[in-house]
């Protein structure tokens, strides 16, 4: 008799879920001067399936790209592996990023890009129209399309200059109102350039970036988002619920716009000195954001019982999850071995809102590393 249980349904549903990924493309030349398309992809690591391989956790996926024009198809596939040191890293929402290259004649194409997780067989597919620009021309130098790469709290402008003449040249660039130049005296054909953008001094809004080598000039725009104390300030202040008194939350909410940044920094400097940390703000909001991403339902994740424990104590050492027990409501047991604490959460109504069952009235203080 064919028998299917809840766990099997869960796995079938998982395998039907599409792999999420983003990609952008850009036109470049390879070191032989042949046009190539570069595909810059990013896949959330927590959407890939990692399996234990020796000492590490390994995800394997196939990335395929097909370019179609006039019923002719050019394409390639790659098998990509991502190794991570520990299991926790596989659950993070950070992105696995990379780039792939296809040599193709300049022109417009219908592009079809597919990611297949080789561990779970789940796939994701996207189609778009792309154009490969011919960067070869009559100029002694040419510039590839610039890209903005995010580093930790920094933004790097990245592009290549192709030197057909092999003669020295100068790059002049303007970022909003800031102008500068860089001399190149190399004979290399491909000249990568990385410029760290002075984000702090640029202000917010759309900034025009101009790159000029000889007669070749290209422009791009960069949009610098307003920091949270302009847009999401109230929301963030209310989320301080587990780390401060309601009077202080009220007083922070009343801080005028032009003093918010300073008051916010002062608040966290004080908290750092109280808790003996250097990054209480980062730790706190990492937990709040995790709770929002994982425990939200009828109410915001950080306001739930699981959210409260998570924000106050950070990630448990171990979670025992029982979503499909027969004759029992779904429940989770969280263990904090180092603190000798155990929490039992029960989903009484079956809607995913796990309530704290044991200890019933836990009011522990927030702890930092």
């Amino acid at each position: 008799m064919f028998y299917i249980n809840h766990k099997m349904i869960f796995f079938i549903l998982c395998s039907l879920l599409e792999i999420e990924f983003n990609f952008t493309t850009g036109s470049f030349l390879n070191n032989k001067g042949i046009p190539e398309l570069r595909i810059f992809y990013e896949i959330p690591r927590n959407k890939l399936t990692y399996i234990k391989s020796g000492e590490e956790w390994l995800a394997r996926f196939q990335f395929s790209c097909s370019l179609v024009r006039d019923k002719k198809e050019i394409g390639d596939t790659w098998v990509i592996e991502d190794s991570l040191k520990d299991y926790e890293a596989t659950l993070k929402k950070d992105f696995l990023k990379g780039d792939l290259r296809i040599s193709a004649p300049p022109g417009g194409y219908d592009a079809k890009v597919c990611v297949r997780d080789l561990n779970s067989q789940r796939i994701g597919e996207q189609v778009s129209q792309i154009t490969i620009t011919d960067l070869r021309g009559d100029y002694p130098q040419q510039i590839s399309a610039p890209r903005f790469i995010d580093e930790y709290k920094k933004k790097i402008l990245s592009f290549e200059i192709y030197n057909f003449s092999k003669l020295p040249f100068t790059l002049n660039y303007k970022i909003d109102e800031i102008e500068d130049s860089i001399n190149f005296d190399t004979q290399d054909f491909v000249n990568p350039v990385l410029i760290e953008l002075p984000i702090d001094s640029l202000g917010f809004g759309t900034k025009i970036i101009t790159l000029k080598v000889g007669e070749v000039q290209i422009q791009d725009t960069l949009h610098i988002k307003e920091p949270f104390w302009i847009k999401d300030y109230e929301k963030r202040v209310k989320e301080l619920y587990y780390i401060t008194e309601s009077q202080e939350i009220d007083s922070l909410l009343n801080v005028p716009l032009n003093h918010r940044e300073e008051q916010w920094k002062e608040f966290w400097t004080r908290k750092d000195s109280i808790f003996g940390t250097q990054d209480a703000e980062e730790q706190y909001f990492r937990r709040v954001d995790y709770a929002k991403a994982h425990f939200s339902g009828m109410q915001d994740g950080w306001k739930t019982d699981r959210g409260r424990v998570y924000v106050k104590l950070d990630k448990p050492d171990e979670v025992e999850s029982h979503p499909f027990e027969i004759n029992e409501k779904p429940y989770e047991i969280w263990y904090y071995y180092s603190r000798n604490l155990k929490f039992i959460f029960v989903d009484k109504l079956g809607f995913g809102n796990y309530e704290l069952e044991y200890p019933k009235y836990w009011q522990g203080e927030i702890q930092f590393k």
Partner: protein
Amino acid sequence: MNLNIQNTGKEKSNLSSTKKVELLINVLKKRYRLNNKTKDSYKVLISTLLSQRTRDELTERVSSELFLNYNKPNDFISLSEEEIASLIKPVGFYRVKARRIKEISSILIEKWNSKVPSTLEGLLSLPGIGRKTANCVLAFGFGIPALPVDTHVHRISNRLGLVNTRTPYETEDALTQIVPQEYWGWLNKALVEFGKEICKPIKPKCSQCELSSICKFNL
């Protein structure tokens, strides 16, 4: 999804930070000789102090000339700040550095029996000595495991995705967790050279780089 294209079997690996460190060390070993010899700790302290915001070639020249006649705390005590400044003048901020050399030398004589302290705390208590200089003295003056993180080490470690950090201090903390201790001091020297030759701040030589496959810029 059925793509009508051949699988060319191209494989790419995104290595874990531990594996990236292994690859980095192997590549750097081929380029730069492993040398764990220590030098006189006082000379290391003074030359590292002189090197702040100064080109390495200039630091090396000035230090060598300076140490011909002055290489102990007592030697500098008898000199005035102006005299020390004139001896080190080509280096950047020579007036401030001259004052620091004199201050440090007298503290070493008074508090440390004319010896350079061999602990991080002791070194950090000296005026003008930050974490990088202190780690240089520990690693190159005493052979004590320490990982000095300067702008090159910080930049390259982040570019290669070994760490994802905002400050050199955070980089030091993260790197010491993934780099075997025996390579700490050497890694600083090797990455400084690599940063000057290949992984330059603005104009990197990606085509000559054996690590481009693990670099997030991968140009």
